[in-house]
């Protein structure tokens, strides 16, 4: 795709360190226009946004259109390895990518609480702009609302992504067959543990950073190497266990995982031991599951491992006809157990 990145338009960006968002920033008047130009326009600048229109108009691409939307409310907003801005870009790009699609554009809706520091908003917008540029995707249009103090919690960001999926791919739970391989692109639990380590009341020193990353380029290589790919999923909230249980519920197949082959960083494993958590329940923001025919598994693995975000990829199990509707696992010591949904909430507001 021929990307056009404009030079930053000349706008007034002289806000002071203690400047804060006020109600008028969402009021539709001059202050709102200045905020949009000075912060969002400055950091997101691209040809679609520069149309300065209520809609972004773009040419019709070849293939089928994929669309996905995701709200981001994470607390804390800045965490090791990312922030709400980069997460809002990666999260939605990955949802689009899990359809086997190449994302082409994003929209962004901001709900900002009155009193939020402008410098923080600028930092978030900068991070969003960088994440989008790195991913080669434009933020095409957006919306800004300000709510009274106490009616929000800093900033909530909703992003919607559109993408294009090639006609020959058939991805979805209906395409999954017993005997297929289950591949995980890397270590589990990095994002959730990074968030926990920086959350008030639970701060613990760790070198773990969030795995937040855009996966669409890796997806493109995987579906190229393994064209029989039946399913792609990103194990975000609820972790691998919820993703797998969602898949098998009501289906004529089950999944059998092998605990010993599931990659988990030692630091993450230690934090989980300490806090009584199961890495299989913890959120990830830069990992994917690929289910493909067994004869294409090594090609899919090799394709993942060519990308930095897939270097720890591993074959972790298979789709089985035994005990349909259940996710089960051979444990580290060779016993058997069910891998259940996360019950209740493990941590509020993780993405």
């Amino acid at each position, binding site marked *: 795709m021929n990307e056009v990145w404009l030079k930053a338009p000349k706008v007034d960006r002289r806000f002071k360190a203690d400047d804060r968002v006020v109600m008028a920033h969402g009021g539709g008047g001059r202050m709102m226009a200045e905020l949009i130009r000075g912060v969002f326009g400055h950091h997101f600048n691209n040809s679609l946004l520069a149309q300065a229109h209520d809609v972004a108009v773009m040419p019709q691409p070849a293939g089928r259109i994929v669309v996905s939307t995701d709200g981001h409310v994470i607390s804390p907003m800045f965490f090791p390895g990312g922030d709400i801005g980069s997460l809002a870009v990666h999260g939605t790009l990955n949802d689009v990518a899990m359809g086997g699609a190449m994302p082409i554009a994003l929209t962004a809706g901001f709900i900002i609480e009155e009193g939020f520091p402008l410098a923080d908003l600028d930092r978030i917008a900068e991070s969003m702009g960088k994440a989008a540029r790195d991913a080669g995707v434009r933020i095409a249009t957006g919306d800004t609302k300000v709510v009274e103090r106490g009616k929000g919690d800093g900033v909530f960001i909703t992003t919607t992504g559109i993408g294009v999926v090639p006609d020959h791919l058939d991805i979805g739970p209906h395409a999954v067959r017993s005997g297929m391989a289950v591949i995980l692109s890397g270590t589990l639990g990095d994002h959730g543990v990074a968030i926990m380590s920086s959350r008030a009341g639970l701060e613990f020193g760790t070198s773990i950073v969030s795995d937040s990353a855009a996966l669409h380029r890796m997806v493109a290589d995987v579906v190229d190497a393994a064209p029989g790919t039946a399913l792609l999923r990103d194990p975000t909230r609820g972790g691998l266990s919820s993703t797998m249980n969602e898949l098998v519920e009501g289906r004529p197949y089950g999944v059998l995982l092998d605990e*010993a082959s599931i990659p988990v960083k030692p630091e993450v*494993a230690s934090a989980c*031991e300490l806090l009584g958590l199961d890495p299989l329940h913890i959120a990830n923001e830069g990992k994917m599951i690929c289910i493909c025919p067994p004869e294409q598994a090594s090609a899919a693995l090799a394709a993942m491992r060519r990308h930095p975000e897939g270097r720890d990829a591993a074959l972790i199990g298979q789709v089985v006809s035994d005990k349909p509707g259940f996710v089960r696992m051979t444990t580290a*010591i*060779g016993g058997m*157990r069910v891998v*259940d949904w996360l019950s209740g909430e493990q941590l509020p507001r993780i993405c």
Partner: protein
Amino acid sequence: MKYVDEFRDRQLAEKLAAAIRAEADPKRIYNFMEFCGGHTHAIFRYGVQDLVPDNVNFVHGPGCPVCILPIRRLDDAIELAERPEVILCSYGDMLRVPASKRRSLMKAKADGADVRMVYSTLDALDIARANPDKQVVFLGIGFETTTPPTALAIEQARAEGIENFSVFCNHVLTPAAIRHILDAPEIDPEQAVRLDGFLGPSHVSTVIGSRPYEFLSDKYAKPVVIAGFEPLDVMQSVLMLIRQVNEGRVDVENQYTRVVTRMGNEKAQDLVAKIFEVRDTFEWRGLGSVPDSALSIREEYAQFDAEKRFEISEKVSREVKSCECPSILRGVKKPKDCKLFGKACTPESPMGSCMVSSEGACAAYWTYRRAETLAEMALEAAE
């Protein structure tokens, strides 16, 4: 992960499994009670029963502090939380436990009560310091493992003169409960489970040592092996118990030597003794009134005792009818014997306490062995 992975090693597990198969007498049935919910969880989490022969049975004991807290005490905690001046602090597990009339601390919180989840008693003290115009009540629950931190918080509150902090004390004692279970057959021989030995608590024993279990071998002629919480600890302890049974020995043995000594942590014991005294009797969910089985705060520290600071109303508390938690906690029934299991009662909408805590037997069966348990239930229903 060092010091953990070694105790989850597959090759070693297979060696232990082979030794257990070789030494367990096929003409015998071995019923071993793991007292602690921590063991129950480890057994299910790692599928330990898949590695032992069918004639070695785990009987799940009442060692889950969330599960045995009587519903009446939980109703009292909710009443405390609902007082406008109170911030009630609790460990996270307690929040979802069903109380009378399907209430819970979580529902009280949704209705406006100030209930906070803490990871440590010292967090509750921080909340007291930060809210001098509020009364901060810590809901103290647990066995001998969690009692010293509660004692520490009370000691600290007195040293600093923190006046708006108190503890609603529900700390309970392990040896008294084991004694009670062994006395139970005399009370109701119909309901007796023949127990051939005990897997002794691991974390509790780090505090109290192995000495308090010696009455089990001396007076009740039951073998005990203090066992660590890792799957290989459990398997090795099972092997040690099988050997005791086969050889006709009744000893208190210690598998968990890397942490547990005979005398335990005497500093912690001294601190607990300074602040708490033994209650004459205390009600346990499932076991009923158990003499000398719980602690209350000594008179010298009465100002930190929520039961003395606040007037708590008399109330009639009711368990859900047909919930089998009481029999399950005594090891008399299995979760599959309960009509509610997996139907009206799941971890998302628990009717009884055994389904709430990850250490509860019902939650363990549901979470880790649901496929097999539901199949068994269907088979039994068909018969």
